C-alpha cells in the first residue's frame, strides 16, 4: 500500500458517503477520509469539517478531491494550516477519486497516478 491517503470534500454528505462506499470496493486498503455538507448537514462545505477530514486521515501525505470550486477554497485554507503535505486535484470528482484509489490500492507509483489523473483534469 502506498502511504498517500485520499481526502474527499463534497457539498453533500450523501455524495461523500456514497463515493466512500463505491471506492471501498476497489481500494479497501487505502486510507480515505471524507466530509460532505456543512456542519449542520446542509448542502455546502465548511472549513472546520474539512480540517477534521484532513487530520483524521492516518496518512501524512494526501491527495485531496472536491466537487465544486468553493469546496476547493476551504480545502486550500485547511491545507495551508495543516502540517500534512496535501495536493489538491483539479480533476472530475467521482472519476478522479475512483482512479486514484484504484491505483493507490495497486501501489502504483506517483508519476503513473498523475499521468492517469491528467486525463481527468476539468476544473477551472
Amino acid at each position, binding site marked *: 500500500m502506498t502511504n498517500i491517503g485520499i481526502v474527499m470534500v463534497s457539498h453533500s454528505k450523501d455524495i461523500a458517503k456514497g463515493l466512500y462506499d463505491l471506492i471501498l*470496493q*476497489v481500494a479497501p486498503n487505502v486510507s480515505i477520509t471524507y466530509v460532505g455538507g456543512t456542519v449542520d448537514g446542509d448542502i455546502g462545505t465548511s472549513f472546520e469539517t474539512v480540517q477534521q477530514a484532513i487530520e483524521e486521515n492516518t496518512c501524512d501525505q494526501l491527495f485531496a478531491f472536491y466537487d465544486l470550486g468553493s469546496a476547493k477554497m476551504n480545502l486550500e485554507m485547511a491545507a495551508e494550516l495543516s502540517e500534512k503535505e496535501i495536493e489538491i486535484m483539479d480533476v472530475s470528482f467521482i472519476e478522479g477519486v475512483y*482512479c486514484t484509489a*484504484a*491505483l493507490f490500492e*495497486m501501489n*502504483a507509483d506517483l508519476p*503513473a497516478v498523475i*499521468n*492517469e489523473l491528467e486525463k481527468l483534469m476539468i476544473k477551472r
Partner: protein
Amino acid sequence: MIITKELAQKWFTVFAEKVIQDKEQLSEYDRIIGDGDHGMNMARGAQQLLSSWQETPPVHLADVFKQAAMKWISGVGGASGPLYGTAFFEMAKAIGTKEELQHEELVNVIKAGFDGIRKRGKSEVGQKTMLDVWAPAIESLEEKQLTTEILETTLTKVTALKATKGRASFLGERSINEVDPGAASSKLFFEALLEAGDLNGD
C-alpha cells in the same frame, strides 16, 4: 457437429457450472483490477439460468439463448450483465427460428454475439476485455482448430495487454500483467462449448 437445442442447453449448463465453480477465482481477478464482483455477478446469472430451466425448459433452440440473455440483463448487474446479456440476445436473434446450426452457422451466431458485445461496450479487440477472448476463439473455431490450449494461450496474451475499456482502464499501465476477469469468464464460455460436443470434427 450440429448444434441442437439439447446441445446448446448442455453448453450453457456446463458454462453455468464452470462459472459457479470458479466464482471465487473470477472475483479474485476482479479484486485486483476491478471491484471484485465479477464472480458473484456471473454466478448470479448462472444460478438463475439453471433454476429457470427447471421451471420453464426452453422449447426452441433460440430460447436457450433468450433465457440466458434475460437472466444476464436483469439479474447480473455490473458491466458483464449487459455485455453477456446483449451477446446472448444477439445470438438468439441470429438463430431466429432455426432449430439446428451447422458449423458455419454456429460461427456466425457467435460472431453476432461478439458484435453485440462490441456495440454494447463501444469496445474493440485489443482493449483487454472479454472481446480479446471472443475474437481469437471465433477465428480458431472457424478453422475447426479451437482447443482448451488455444484458449489458455489466448488468456495469457490478454493478460499482457493494457486495459483501455471498463474499470480497469483507470489503472492505465498498471493493468498490464493482470488477468482480466471478463476474459477469464469468456474462456469458460468457450471451454463449455468444447465440452458440450466435438466441434472440430464433422
